[in-house]
């Protein structure tokens, strides 16, 4: 290895492992101490096994994985809190770990006193602290609470203070374990911009996060841990989407998915595009409708956006005109666009037809559960087209629109618009249908086809900076 390459490495680990001795009874620990030479009184629990890792200076690397996959143990070894039980590890530079919020904060002391203590603990000298105190105070931004006992703080304030100290220690290597999710939006933003700034200064950053968005936004590379092993290293987008696949898979499918992940790690040609490619759009013959300007929903309700926005929901006929007066038995296209402000994972789109009284008649989703689009980068715009075969009796109907994505809390609406559009089915004097739905056999079959045919066209927008 040339010294140049060596110089550029911040962390290098080979075969890094951590095994804990698990004792059935406390006295076994003592027996092990005394008779350990001749017999083993414990079994080993491997929290991390055989991890090879090289992190270059200035790189930001995210570690994702399910609970208990060994992420935190790995980070603790990298910062030197835990001694590895096997393998080699070389860390070049001053490490600042932020593994838990407000560790060592004493509730009876004021913020100022705690900052002084905390600084001493993480190795900031008094002289340096005096220099940085103002920027720490500014960063924490908790006003006069700074001189109040920490006991009186909200948990958000504690984390702001702790983060302010740690991040102002100018580390060569910053190690952060799942804490950026605390605090309000504005503070998280401030943390990110400070992390960006550290990145620019050439700091190496390693972090564990359950927030897939963060990993995609901040990281140059991501690592997926599973069962104490590193199973995948790669582009954050790929890693995170596979992680989601693994996370939400039913247990019996996990080995299969894990196998797929390992294959990719072995350096297969990036299959990502192939995977995310939307089904080819077939244009189904549409009918002609008309437009009644007075027929507009008064009850439209848009839920708060969670990173995606549904726009321009509309019904389109064969001419490409916007229509809302439809012919029974004919086919139209229900369309809307979704703008993604942040990256999203496992994305599915949906629509729903409701009666005037709110009864939910029929819905469609773009893909079956668990098979959403792996990853949609921020700035993308998705164009949706649902075939709407009007198997309805005459009357007025409402349309809903929704985008679903996988988040830390499971599948959630990223955006949802209730009563996004409405339409009227014209009376047909020859119709034999009564009730709410036209149940003629052939048409029911077509509903199923329509469900399969929900169309998604993804237009990738510019990638966000970084």
């Amino acid at each position: 290895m040339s010294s140049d390459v060596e110089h550029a490495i911040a962390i290098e680990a080979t075969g890094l492992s951590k095994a804990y001795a698990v004792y059935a009874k406390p006295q076994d620990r003592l027996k092990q101490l005394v008779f350990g030479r001749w017999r083993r009184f414990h079994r080993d629990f491997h929290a991390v096994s055989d991890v090879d890792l090289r992190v270059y200076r200035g790189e930001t690397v995210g570690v994702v994985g399910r609970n208990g996959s060994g992420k935190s143990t790995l980070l603790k070894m990298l910062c030197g809190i835990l001694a590895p039980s096997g393998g080699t590890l070389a860390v070049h530079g001053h490490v600042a770990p932020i593994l838990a919020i407000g560790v060592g904060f004493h509730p009876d002391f004021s913020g100022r006193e705690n900052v002084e203590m905390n600084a001493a603990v993480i190795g900031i000298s008094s002289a340096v602290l005096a220099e940085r105190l103002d920027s720490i105070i500014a960063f924490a931004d908790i006003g006069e609470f700074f001189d109040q006992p920490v006991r009186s703080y909200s948990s958000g304030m504690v984390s702001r203070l702790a983060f302010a100290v740690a991040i102002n220690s100018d580390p060569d290597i910053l190690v952060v374990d799942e804490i950026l999710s605390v605090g309000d939006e504005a503070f998280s933003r401030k943390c990110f911009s400070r992390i960006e700034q550290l990145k620019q200064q050439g700091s190496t950053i390693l972090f564990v996060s359950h927030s897939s968005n963060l990993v995609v936004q901040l990281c140059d590379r991501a690592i997926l841990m599973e069962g104490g092993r590193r199973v995948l290293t790669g582009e954050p987008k790929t890693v995170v989407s596979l992680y989601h696949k693994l996370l939400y898979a039913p247990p019996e499918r996990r080995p299969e998915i894990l196998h797929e992940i390992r294959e990719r790690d072995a350096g297969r040609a990036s299959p990502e595009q192939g995977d995310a490619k939307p089904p080819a759009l077939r244009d189904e013959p549409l009918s002609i409708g008309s437009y009644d300007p007075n027929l507009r929903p008064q009850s439209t309700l848009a839920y708060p956006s969670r990173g995606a926005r549904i726009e321009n929901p509309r019904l389109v006929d064969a001419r490409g005109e916007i229509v809302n007066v439809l012919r029974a038995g004919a086919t139209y296209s229900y369309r809307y666009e979704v703008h993604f402000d942040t990256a999203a994972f496992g994305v599915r789109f949906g629509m729903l037809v409701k009666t005037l009284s709110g009864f939910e008649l029929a819905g469609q989703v773009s893909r079956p559960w668990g098979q959403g689009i792996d990853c949609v980068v921020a700035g993308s715009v998705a164009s949706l087209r649902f075939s709407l075969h009007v198997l309805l009796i005459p009357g007025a109907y409402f349309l809903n629109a929704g985008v679903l994505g996988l988040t830390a809390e499971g599948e959630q609406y990223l955006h949802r618009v209730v009563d996004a559009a409405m339409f009227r089915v014209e009376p047909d004097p020859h119709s034999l249908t009564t009730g709410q739905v036209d149940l003629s056999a052939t048409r029911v079959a077509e509903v199923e086809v329509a469900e399969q045919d929900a169309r998604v066209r993804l237009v990738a927008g510019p990638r966000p900076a970084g």
Partner: protein
Amino acid sequence: MAPNPVGAIAARQTHFLVSGWRHRQLIIRLTRSRIAERYRGSLLGGAWAVVLPLLMLGVYTFVFSEVFHSRWDGNGLGGVGFALRLFAGMLTFAVFADCATEAPSLMHANQTYIKQMLFPTEVLGWVSVLGALWRFAMGFALLFVFQVVLSGGPSLAVLALPLALVPLALIALGTSWIFSSLGVFLRDLAQVVTVLTQALLFLSPVFYPASRVPESLRPWFHANPFVTILESVRAPLFDGVLPDWRALGIVTAVAFVYAWAGHRWFLRAKGSFADVL
């Protein structure tokens, strides 16, 4: 930017004086906050540091002069004089006893530092000893005032007294490091240490002068470093006599090696603290 190879947390051996100096700011900061923590929120605050020893001194005086009519030695020194000597012994021994009894649970009490932060755990020994020395200083100030009021100004020999504290602090440090590291693995240690400390208290000349020990047992008795330490605290203060330099020198040397070995052992053991806690 030195490389930081595996086991840096466990293997890098530094002399305890070097590491103590390197972390001096942290040690001072922690000691101050531990002391403040003790009185924070209490009504009398820092005044407790004086009130408690004063109460103790009052009780000793009452019990030993009014109840027991005790005499320190043949010179007919009784009453308050006895109480002051006893008090001096108690204060001195407490520096060791406080550290020894605190040690077995020291790492458990600070486990967040160990498990979540890069924290030089060896400084906790220093913090424990400095806290005990601070309490000693408070009590001693009181003792000194009483002594001056009762028997007039002290002789210059008092200036030698701090030298007697050097081996005391070293023994307390070494004990703190050894017991605190063992305490991580052996949770029963706390009970054992309490009993041992009690035994040592009675085997040391705290409640009686060393001269009361039968001649035949003297060599064994003097193997206890607290004999020399306690005598070296009392002699300058009460009798205006300089300590026995030879004995004090030997005890200091032994205490130094003890502290050094304790620190070395601690550094070896600390690598596995985070695993066990």
